[in-house]
C-alpha cells in the first residue's frame, strides 16, 4: 500500500502557519500574500528579509518558519531543512516550545515525504515529547492534531498500521477539539488515511465508514475559505480510490474499474497529487484478475513509468540533500579547524610573548648575577 496524501497536508500546515501570524513588516505581509499564488516570489521576498541584519530573535524564528514552509512548498528541500534546523535551534534557545513543535513537525514532514523514515521519526518523536509536556494555547490546538497525524503517517509508511491507527484516532480527537475550519479539513485527511490502513488490514467495513467520513461535500467546500478547491478535489479522489480498492477486494472488479477510470478522467494535467500512480496499479491488478493481460500490462507500464518519474525526483532530492549535508559537514569541520588554528595562533602569540618576557627577565637577572659574581671574586682576590 502506498500513502501519497502527505504533500497535501504539508500545504495545509504551511497555510495554517501563515494565516496565524501577525507580521511586523509590510514586506513579510507581501510575502504572505504571494505564498499560494506565487511561492517563488514569496520565497524571494522572505530571503530578502532574512538577509537584512536588523532582525530580533523572535522575529527571526517566525521568518525562518515562513522560509521553511515556502522552501518546502517550492520543493527546495535542502534549503527547507537548513532553515528548519536553524529555526529549531533558535526556538530551543529562546525556549519557545510552540515554535519548536512547529519546526519539528514540518521537518519530520519533509523527511517523511522524502521517505527518510528514520529522520522523520526522530523529529516527530521529539515533537511528541514536547507536546506531552506543553499546554498549547487554544488557538494552537490543531498543532497537536498535526503532529499526531504525522506520527500516524510515519507508522503507515513503515507498514505498521496497528500503531498508525492509534495515532490517527488521537489526531482525529485533537482536530475535533480544535474546531477551526482548517482542522475540520485536516480531520478528513486523518479519516482518509485511517481508512487506507483499515483496507490494508482487510477491515473493509471500518474502512468504508471512515471513507464516507472523509468525503468533502459541496457545503463543506464553501465553508472552507482559504483552502483551494483543487486540494479538496484531490481529497475526494483519494476517497474514491479507497472505495475502488474495497470493491476490488470484494471481487466487484468492474465497479472498481469504473471508479478508477472516472478518477483518471477528472485528473487534470496540473494535478499535484500522486493519486494516478495508485490508480494505475489498482487498474493493472483489476485487469489481471479479469484475465485481460494486455490492459493489465499497459497499466502496469504506466504505473512503472509514474513510479520511475517519482523515483527520479526522489533520487535527485536525496542526492542534493546528501551533497548539501556533506558540504555543511565539511564546512562545519573547516570552520572548527580554522577556529582552532586561530586560537592556536593566539595562544602561541600570547604564550610566546609571555615566554619571551620571562626569558628576558631571566637573562637580565642572570647577567646581573654574573656581574655580581665576577665582582665578588675580584673583591676576594
Amino acid at each position, binding site marked *: 500500500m502506498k500513502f501519497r496524501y502527505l504533500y497535501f497536508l504539508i500545504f495545509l500546515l504551511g497555510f495554517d502557519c501563515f494565516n496565524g501570524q501577525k507580521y511586523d513588516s509590510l514586506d513579510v505581509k507581501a510575502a504572505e500574500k504571494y505564498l499560494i499564488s506565487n511561492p517563488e516570489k514569496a520565497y524571494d521576498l522572505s530571503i530578502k528579509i532574512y538577509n537584512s541584519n536588523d532582525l530580533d530573535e523572535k522575529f527571526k524564528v517566525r521568518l525562518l518558519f515562513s522560509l521553511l514552509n515556502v522552501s518546502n512548498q517550492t520543493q527546495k528541500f535542502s534549503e527547507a531543512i537548513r532553515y528548519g534546523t536553524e529555526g529549531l535551534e533558535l526556538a530551543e534557545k529562546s525556549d519557545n516550545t510552540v515554535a519548536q513543535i512547529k519546526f519539528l513537525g514540518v521537518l519530520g514532514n519533509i523527511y517523511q515525504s522524502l*521517505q527518510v523514515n528514520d529522520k522523520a521519526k526522530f523529529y516527530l518523536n521529539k515533537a511528541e515529547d514536547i507536546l506531552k509536556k506543553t499546554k498549547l494555547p487554544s488557538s494552537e490546538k490543531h498543532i497537536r492534531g498535526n503532529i499526531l497525524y504525522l506520527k500516524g503517517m510515519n507508522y503507515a509508511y513503515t507498514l505498521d498500521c496497528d500503531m498508525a491507527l492509534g495515532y490517527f484516532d488521537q489526531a482525529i480527537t485533537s482536530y475535533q477539539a480544535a474546531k477551526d475550519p482548517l482542522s475540520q479539513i485536516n480531520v478528513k485527511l486523518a479519516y482518509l488515511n485511517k481508512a487506507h490502513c483499515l483496507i490494508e488490514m482487510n477491515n473493509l467495513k471500518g474502512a468504508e465508514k471512515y471513507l464516507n467520513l472523509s468525503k468533502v461535500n459541496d457545503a463543506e467546500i464553501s465553508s472552507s475559505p482559504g483552502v483551494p478547491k483543487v486540494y479538496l478535489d484531490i481529497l475526494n479522489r483519494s476517497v474514491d480510490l479507497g472505495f475502488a480498492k474495497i470493491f476490488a477486494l470484494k471481487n466487484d472488479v468492474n465497479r472498481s474499474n469504473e471508479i478508477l477510470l472516472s478518477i483518471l478522467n477528472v485528473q487534470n494535467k496540473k494535478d499535484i497529487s500522486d493519486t494516478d500512480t495508485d490508480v494505475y496499479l489498482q487498474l493493472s491488478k483489476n485487469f*489481471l484478475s479479469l484475465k485481460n493481460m494486455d490492459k493489465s500490462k499497459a497499466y502496469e507500464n504506466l504505473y512503472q513509468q509514474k513510479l520511475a518519474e517519482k523515483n527520479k525526483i526522489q533520487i535527485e532530492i536525496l542526492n542534493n540533500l*546528501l551533497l548539501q549535508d556533506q558540504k555543511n*559537514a565539511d564546512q562545519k569541520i573547516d570552520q572548527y579547524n580554522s577556529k582552532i588554528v586561530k586560537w*592556536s595562533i593566539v595562544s602561541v602569540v600570547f604564550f610566546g610573548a*609571555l*615566554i619571551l618576557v620571562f626569558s628576558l627577565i*631571566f637573562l637580565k637577572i642572570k647577567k646581573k648575577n654574573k656581574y655580581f659574581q665576577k665582582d665578588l671574586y675580584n673583591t676576594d682576590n
Partner: protein
Amino acid sequence: MKLLFACVFGLFFYHLSAQHVSDTKQIFHKIDSQMIANPAKARDLIGFVKKNNQNKEVLNECSRLMVQAYYYENNYNEALQEIIQTENQQNVDGIIAYQSILYSAGIKNVDFNANYSENALFKINREILASNDLILQGSIAKAIQKTEGILPKITNENKHNYRDSFSFILVNLSENNRLSQFPGFHQSVLKIFSLYPDDLEFNILKKKLFPEIISDQWLLKTGNIIENTSNFRLKTLYYSFLQDYYFSKKDVSHYSLISQKKENQVSQGNKAITEARSQWIYLTETKTVDEYNFAEKRGLIILSAIVFLSCMILMVLFFKIRQEKLKGKNYQLFSDKLKTNARKKKEPQVISENVKLALLEKLEKLESTNFYLDPHISIQNLAKKLDSNSKYVSDIINTYKKKNFTAYINEMRIDYIKQKLNTETVYRSYKIKYLAEESGFSSHSVFSSVFKSIEGISPAQYIQNLNH
C-alpha cells in the same frame, strides 16, 4: 649446519604460506562461482576466509564480496554498514563495487574517504553509470555513444569490476522495450553479454532482451536454480523474464501467477531501497558527526598541548627566575657583608673616653689580683675578664701603658719577681727555673731573656748584687 637448518625451515614455511595462499585463491574461486546462484553460501565461505586471514588485501577482497553478497540478497542494511565501516581502507576494486551498489539504491553523491576519483578503473565505472543515467533520462542515442566509447576499455582483467554496473544498463534496456526501439544498441549489448558468458543473470537478461525459442529444459533448469537461490535480484529478474515469456505465449494463468510473484519481489525491493536511503542518510550523518567529534578532539588536544607546553616552559622560567633572584639576593648579602668588613677595616674604631676610663679602671683593679702570673694569659682571656673585646683592651694598653700587650704582661711579671727578691730573701736562694714559674713564664730561658732585656742584667747577677 645452522645454515642448512635455516634453509630447511625457510623452505618449509615458504611451502606452508604458499599452500595457504593457494587455498585462499581456491576458496575465492569457489566464492566467485557461488556468488550469483547462491550468495548465502558465498557469504559463509567469505566468513571462513575472513576468520582465517590477517592479510589486508584478502580482508579487503572479503569485504567487497560480502557487500556484493548482501546486495544480491537485497540486504541493504548489512551491505551499507559494511560499506561505511570498510570504505576507508578499501582498494579501487572495492570502491567500484561499493559505488555501484550505492548507485543501485539511488545514492550517487558519495564522498569516499579513499580518493580514487582520478583512477582509470574508477572513471570507467563512473562512465558506465553515467551511461545508465542517460538511458533512464531517455537519451538513448547518447547512451549508445557513451557505451561504445567505454567497451574497448574493458578487458578480461578488469571486467569483474563492472558486472553490476553493466547489469543496470541491461535491466533498464529490458524495461518498456527500450532496446527494440534502438537497434543501434544491439552491438554494444551483445559485446557486454560476451564479457560474462557464464553468468546466469546475464544469461536471463539475454533471453529477455533477445527473445528466442526457450527450451523447456532451460526453463526447468533455471527454475530449479531460482527456486533454491537466495539471490533476490536474480529472482526478480527471472520473474520479470517469465512475465514477458507468458505474455508472449498468451498464457494468462501463468502470467497472473508470476505477476503476483513479481509484484511482491518489486515491492520488497522498493521497500529495501527506501530503507537503504534512509539508513544511508543516518550512517553518513553519524559518520560526519564522528568526523566532527574527531576534529573537535584533535583541536582540543592541539590547543591543550600548546597551553600545557607553554605553561611548563613558563613554570620552568618562573622557577629559574626565582632561583636567580635568590642567588642575586645572596650575592647582595655577601657583597654587603664584604663591604661592611672592608669599611670596618678601613675606619679605625673610635672608643669613647668614658669607656676607656672605665676599662682602664677595671684593668688596674685586675692588676692587683696578679692576673699576669697565669702562664696561659692572652689578650682574649684578659678581654673576657674585663667584659670587653681584645681590640679595646689592646687599645687601652697601647694608649695608657704605652706598650703592647706582651711587653705589659712581661714587665708586670718582672716587677713582681723583683719585689719578691727584694723583700723576701728566701727567694734569692731559689733556682732560676722556679723564679720563672713563679712569675708566670713558661720557661726559664724566656724569663732570663726578658729579665735581661728589662733590667740589663741576668736574674742571677741581680740576685748576686742584692746579696752583696
